[in-house]
C-alpha cells in the first residue's frame, strides 16, 4: 500500500491549497472572516492533524504487513497476545479518550460560539426569507427591503432571522459562520459578525428544486457610516424617472405584467412574489447572482430569463428593442 502513504502526503499538500491559492474566492470555509468561522476552522485543522496521524498509523501497519509478509510476528516481536493488545489499546481505549475530548471541546465548548446568539447580545437583526430561488432581505425597524444582497455593519453582532416562503432552504455564508436551514414554521437564527469589511458570497445549501444551483447571495460588510447611508437610501421610495425614455419605461413596467410580481415602492407596482426592485440599480447582481447587474445583462434577463435560469418563476416577454431599452433605462435609474 505504498500508494496509501502517497495519498496521505497528497492529503496534506492539497488540503493546504484552499487557504493559499483560493483564499479570495469569497466562499471558502477555511478563510474565516469572523470569530465563529475562526473557531470552526481551528476545529477543522486540529481534527485534520489528528486524522492524519490516525491514518498514518494504520497505513504503516498495512505497509508493514506487506513489507514483512514472510514473517508471522510483529516488527516489535510478539504474536497473538501482542496483536490483541494493539486492537484493544489502539482500537478501543485510545480512541475513546480522544473522541471524548473532541466531544467536550467541539460539542460543549465550540458549540457555544457558533450556536444561535442570545437575542440580547446582538445590536441589530436582519430577516432573510428564502424563496424559490432567491433571497428576500428585510431590516426590522426600517422600511428597507432588498434581495440577494445583504448589507451589514462590520464588527457588529447581527442576528440573522431565517424563514422560508416555500420549501426548505439553507442559509450559508462560509466565511462568516456555519449554515442554518430555513424551515417552514420556524425562525432559525444565526450570528453574522464580520471582522473586516468586504464581500462574502453565500449559497443555498439545502436542495430546493430545479434552480437550487442559482440561489446565491452576497453579504456586504460595510463600515458603519456607509451602512447607515445605504440603509437610509434603501428606506426611500423609488426615484422618479428623469429622462423621457425612463418615464416610458416606468409606464411599461406598470402596464406590463411586471408590476404583478415586483414591488417598486412609491409607484403602483405592488407585487410581492418577486424581488422588490425599488433600488435595483444599487445591486451588483441579478437573479440571485446569476448575472451581473449591467444594463446589457439586465436587457438579456428581461427578454429571456428562462435562458439563464430555466424554471425561474419569471417569464420572458416579447418586447420591441425600444420597449426593452426603455425598461432598462427606468430600472437602471432606480438608485
Amino acid at each position: 500500500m505504498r500508494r496509501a502513504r502517497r495519498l496521505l502526503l497528497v492529503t496534506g499538500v492539497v488540503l493546504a491549497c484552499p487557504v493559499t491559492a483560493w483564499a479570495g474566492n469569497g466562499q471558502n470555509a477555511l478563510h474565516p472572516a469572523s470569530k465563529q468561522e475562526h473557531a470552526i476552522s481551528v476545529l477543522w485543522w486540529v481534527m485534520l492533524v489528528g486524522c492524519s496521524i490516525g491514518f498514518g498509523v494504520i497505513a504503516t501497519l498495512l505497509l508493514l504487513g506487506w513489507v514483512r509478509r514472510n514473517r508471522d510476528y510483529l516488527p516489535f516481536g510478539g504474536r497473538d497476545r501482542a496483536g490483541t493488545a494493539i486492537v484493544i489499546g489502539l482500537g478501543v481505549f485510545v480512541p475513546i479518550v480522544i473522541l471524548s475530548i473532541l466531544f467536550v471541546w467541539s460539542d460543549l465548548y465550540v458549540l457555544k460560539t457558533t450556536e444561535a446568539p442570545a437575542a440580547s447580545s446582538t445590536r441589530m437583526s436582519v430577516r432573510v426569507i428564502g424563496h424559490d430561488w432567491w433571497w428576500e432581505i428585510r431590516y426590522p425597524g426600517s422600511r428597507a427591503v432588498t434581495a440577494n444582497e445583504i448589507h451589514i455593519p462590520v464588527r457588529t453582532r447581527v442576528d440573522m432571522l431565517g424563514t422560508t416562503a416555500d420549501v426548505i432552504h439553507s442559509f450559508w455564508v462560509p466565511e462568516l459562520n456555519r449554515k442554518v436551514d430555513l424551515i417552514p414554521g420556524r425562525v432559525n437564527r444565526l450570528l453574522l459578525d464580520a471582522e473586516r469589511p468586504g464581500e462574502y458570497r453565500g449559497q443555498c445549501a439545502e436542495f430546493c428544486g430545479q434552480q437550487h444551483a442559482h440561489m446565491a447571495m452576497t453579504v456586504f460588510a460595510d463600515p458603519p457610516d456607509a451602512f447607515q447611508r445605504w440603509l437610509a437610501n434603501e428606506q426611500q421610495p423609488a426615484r422618479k424617472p428623469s429622462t423621457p425614455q425612463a418615464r416610458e419605461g416606468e409606464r411599461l413596467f406598470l402596464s406590463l405584467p411586471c408590476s404583478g410580481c415586483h414591488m417598486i415602492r412609491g409607484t403602483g407596482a405592488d407585487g410581492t412574489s418577486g424581488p422588490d426592485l425599488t433600488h435595483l440599480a444599487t445591486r451588483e447582481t441579478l437573479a440571485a447572482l446569476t448575472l451581473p447587474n449591467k444594463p446589457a445583462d439586465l436587457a438579456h434577463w428581461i427578454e429571456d430569463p428562462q435562458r439563464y435560469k430555466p424554471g425561474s418563476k419569471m417569464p420572458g416577454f416579447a418586447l420591441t428593442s425600444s420597449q426593452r431599452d426603455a425598461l432598462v433605462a427606468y430600472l437602471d435609474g432606480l438608485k
Partner: protein
Amino acid sequence: MTTTVTEPGLRRVERLERIWVEPRGLLGWLTTTDHKRIGLLYFFTTLAFFGAGGIEALLMRTQLSQPEEKVLSPETYNQLMTMHGVTMIFLFVIPMAIGAFGNYLVPLMIGARDMAFPRLNALSFWLFLASGLFMYASVFMHAAPNAGWFDYVPLALKQYSPGRNIDFYALGLIFNGISSTAAALNFIVTIFKLRAPGMSINRMPLFCFAMLAVSLSLIFALPSLTIDLVYLELQRNLGFHFFDVTQGGDPLLWQHLFWLFGHPEVYIIILPAFGIATSIIPTFSKRKMIAFPLVALAELLVAFIGFGVWAHHMFATGLPTITLVFFAAASMMVVIPSTIQVFAWTVTVALGRPEFRAPLMFIGGFIVFFVLGGLSGIMFAAIPFDQATTDTYFVVAHFHFIIFGAAVFPILGGMFYWFPKVTGRLYHEGAAKLSFWLTFVGTALTFFPMHIVGLLGMTRRVYTYPSSLGWDAYNLSETIGAFILTAGLLLIFANLAYSRFRGAPAGPDPFFGGTLEWATTSPPPSFNFPVIPTVRSAYPNWDVEDRRADAARLERGELVLDEGHETPASTVVDAVPDEIVEMPGESPWPLAVAVCTGLLFVMLLTRHYAVAGVFAGLALLAVAVWNAKEPQEQ
C-alpha cells in the same frame, strides 16, 4: 471430499442429486428455490442496476466537468441525481451484498442445504426485481423522482412536486422495503436455526455475523422509512396532514423518520463489506482473525449504535442543543467498533504471511478508503464543523469513500474471491491486479478532490457552478477520475466474463479458505454438501481431520439425509441438532405473488384504489395456494 468416495457413498450422492434436482431451462429459473440460483439472479439483476446508476453518475460528472456546462437540463440533472442515489443504495449495494453474496454464501458457510424459507427467498427476489422495474419505469416516462434521495418535504409535497415523480419514489421504496424485510427475516432464521451441528454462536463465521447484523438492522430500520413514505403518500394523495405547519404538522417529522432509517441504512450498506473483508483477510493472511470475539461484537455493535445517531443529519435544522448532544455523543462512539475492526484487520495481515492476490488488494484499498471516509466521518460528530460542511461536497466525498470505496471495493474483491467457488474456474490474476489499480486510482481521483471543493464552498446537488470560485480544476479531475474508475470496473467484468468460459479449473478450494463453502465442490451441488458437516472451531475447513470424518460419514451414511428433501435444524445459541426439516421444492407461486404485488403498486400509483384492493386480494390468495402445499409427513 466427494473426490475420494467409494460405491456406497457414490450411490448416496446420486440419490441426493435425484432428490434436489430442479427443472432445467427458463422454467427452472422462474420457479427455483435454490439459494445459489436465487443468489445468481440477484447478482445479475443488481449488476444491471449498477450499470444504470453508473451511467447516471457519468452523465452528471460530464455536466459538472466544467462550469456553466450545458449537457443536461436542470430537471434532467435532478432526476439523474435522485435516481443515482436511489439505485446505488436500494437497487445495487444492498441487494448485491445481501441478496447475491448473502444468499449464495450464508447457507454454504453454516453447512445448510438451503435458506430456512426457500420460497420466501424466491419471493424476495421477484419483489425486488418488480420494485426495481417499477421505479425505472419512471425514468422512461421522464417522470423520475427529482427531490434527492432523501426527498425532503415540503419540496416533495404535491404543492411543489405535482407530478408522479415522488409517487414513483414513495411507492417504489415501500415496495422495495417489503422485499428487503422478507430477505432479512429469512437470513435471521437461517443463521439462528440452520447452523451445522457444533457451530455454536461463538464458532459462527464473521461473514454470517455481518449478515445477521445487517438483517437485524433492516428489520428494525425499514419500518420507519415505510411509515414515513405512507405518511407522504397519504398527504400527497388523500389530503392528510403530517408535514405542514399550518395544520399542526412538522416538516422535520419527515427528516426524523427518514434518518431514523437512513443512518442504520449506512451501516446496512457497509456491514456486508466488513463481512467480506473478514472472510478474505484470514484466507490470504493464512491465519485466523485476531480478536475474533471483538470483531464479531463490533459488527453487531455498529449496527446497534447506528440507530442512535440519526439526528446528526439534522444538525443544521436549528434543533435545540440539548437534543443534538445525544446524537453527537453516539456519533462519536459509533466509531469505536470500526476502529476495533480496522486494527483487527491490519494486525491480522501483519501477523500473517499475507499473499497479496487481487482479493486481498481490493481489501487493502477498502481499508484505505474506509479509514479516510471514517476519519472524515468523525468530523461530522463535531456539531459546529458538521453545520459548516453538511450539504457540501465534503459530505459527498465522505460518503462516497464509504459507500463506494469501502462498501463496493470488498464486493469487487469478493467477486474475485468467490468466483472459483461459483464457476469452478480461476479468474485472470494479472488483469485483476491491473483492474484494482485502475479502480483504486479512479476512486481516489474522483472522490478525494470533492473534500476540497466542499471546503471551498461548493454545495451538493447543484447542476452547475460559476467559474469564479476556483472549483474548476477539482471538478475536472473528478470527472476524469470517474472515467478511469469506469475503465477499471469494465476490466473487472471483462475478466470475470472471460474467465467464466476460459479460466483454468479451480478445484474445490483454490485459496485454502477457512470457512465451509470451501469444503464442497466448485460449483457446489444443488444440495451443497453430501454430508452435513460437523464443526469444532471458527475455521472448520482448516480442521482437516473433521473434514475427513465427514467423508467417512458419507461411507456410513450418517448425516447424509438422502431420504428426502431435508436439512437439519438446531438450537439457536449452541447449535445442538434438534430436528430434520423437510424443505419445499421449486414453486411458481412466489413469482405469482410478486406479479400481483407489482400490479397492486401500479394501481396505487394510478390511484385506482379499488382495483388495487383486488390485486391485494389476489396476492393473498396466491400466498394461500403456495402455503397449501405442505411437507409430506406420511
